[in-house]
């Protein structure tokens, strides 16, 4: 039996919540922005008015203001976004127990077993949109399909507040003309590799030779080929399912550049203490420590090293992290961001 999978995406989530709570912002170009004082001064999210003027997530604030001089920057309120995300999930869980979050603002739902109660996929999608608008005051786009990949693609196709259905009969005419970069897991690096081989659309990818894709992208190439042909069978996990933790890391962008060894030492120690505390919480030990360094010219690199024995003390993590920093940071450039992962 064919599955019925929904993907719900809360439109411009952070910006929509901010505009709801501050009605005077509605209609104006708005961006949720990090704190420039702490050097987190980038656009985290924007509304449609700002998007229309070319403002993009990740733009530094000065660049956003240049594109859109009357833009309003507001600080983020994560507690509010968490609360909204939680209520949305409560709504979803009234229709199925298979609800898999993808970030705060997106969720997959498998409603195959719920259609006798609530109607077909489109009817459930429309009901969800209506309820989210009424109960949360924000809008959602919902994709309906028979696998997760096409459901996600569907939710991206019409925005805001729309339902898009991609059936197994019609996916070739709907999905194949789209640029290959629209497909989930085709990031920048994969996209440029595919471009080199003239694979520009999802249809090109679907009709490419599997061996060629394996040659270009390894196992991922085969996976993407299957996605493009509507052959994704990955399940939607159950609500409350915890994802498997493979590693634990922390990072920080310092309020000012870190110049001396003492600056680096203090920052790495704080990060290692946090990583170590989380490892104890989850009962992990590690063999390897990885550091990430970004200098003041935004050049970044990662290095990893092995511990002499499996461990989770902050001291052991720190000693390895600092040793690697001293070994690899030969440029001596001031450091902007640091990360530690174990």
């Amino acid at each position: 039996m064919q599955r019925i999978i929904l993907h719900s995406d809360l439109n411009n989530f952070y910006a929509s919540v901010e505009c709801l709570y501050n009605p005077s912002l509605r209609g104006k170009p708005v961006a949720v922005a990090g704190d420039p004082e702490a050097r987190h001064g980038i656009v985290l999210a924007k509304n449609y008015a700002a998007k229309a003027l070319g403002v993009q997530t990740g733009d530094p604030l000065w660049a956003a203001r240049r594109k859109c001089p009357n833009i309003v920057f507001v600080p983020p309120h994560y507690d509010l976004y968490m609360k909204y995300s939680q209520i949305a999930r409560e709504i979803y869980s009234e229709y199925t127990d298979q609800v898999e979050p993808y970030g705060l603002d997106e969720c997959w739902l498998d409603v195959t077993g719920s259609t006798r109660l609530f109607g077909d996929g489109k009817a459930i999608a429309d009901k969800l949109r209506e309820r989210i608008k009424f109960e949360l005051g924000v809008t959602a786009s919902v994709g309906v399909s028979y696998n997760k990949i096409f459901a996600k693609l569907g939710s991206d196709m019409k925005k805001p507040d729309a339902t898009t259905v991609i059936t197994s009969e019609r996916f070739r005419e709907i999905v194949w003309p789209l640029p290959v970069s629209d497909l989930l897991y085709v990031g920048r690096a994969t996209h440029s590799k595919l471009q080199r081989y003239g694979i520009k659309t999802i249809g090109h990818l679907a009709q490419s030779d599997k061996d060629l894709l394996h040659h270009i992208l390894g196992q991922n190439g085969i996976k993407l080929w299957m996605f493009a042909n509507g052959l994704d069978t990955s399940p939607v996990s159950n609500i409350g399912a915890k994802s498997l933790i493979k590693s634990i890391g922390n990072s920080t962008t310092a309020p000012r550049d870190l110049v001396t060894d003492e600056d680096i030492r203090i920052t790495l120690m704080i990060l290692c203490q946090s990583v170590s505390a989380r490892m104890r919480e989850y009962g992990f030990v590690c063999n390897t420590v990885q550091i990430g360094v970004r200098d003041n010219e935004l050049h970044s690199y990662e290095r990893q090293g092995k511990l002499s024995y499996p461990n989770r003390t902050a001291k052991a993590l720190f000693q390895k992290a600092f040793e690697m920093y001293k070994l690899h940071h030969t440029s001596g450039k001031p450091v902007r961001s640091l990360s530690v992962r174990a």
Partner: protein
Amino acid sequence: MARKVFVEVTAKFDTEGKITPLSLLWEDGTVYEIDRITDVRRAASLKAGGTGIRYTVKIRGRQSYLFYEEPRWFVEAKE
């Protein structure tokens, strides 16, 4: 657009956990008794900005919305 006015509410909590607002204290110091509750549902307030459990209440013959946006209560007031 409306003003979001947080108000002090006197409410009854029954043994099932159901909350019934009984009266509210307006910003000028007047206490308004809630005569009747005609609807309870989760709803957003687009006018004042927020979301919560919306009580449709009758106060002195007039209908208005009282929102329980945990842990506070608010009403939509004219500008």
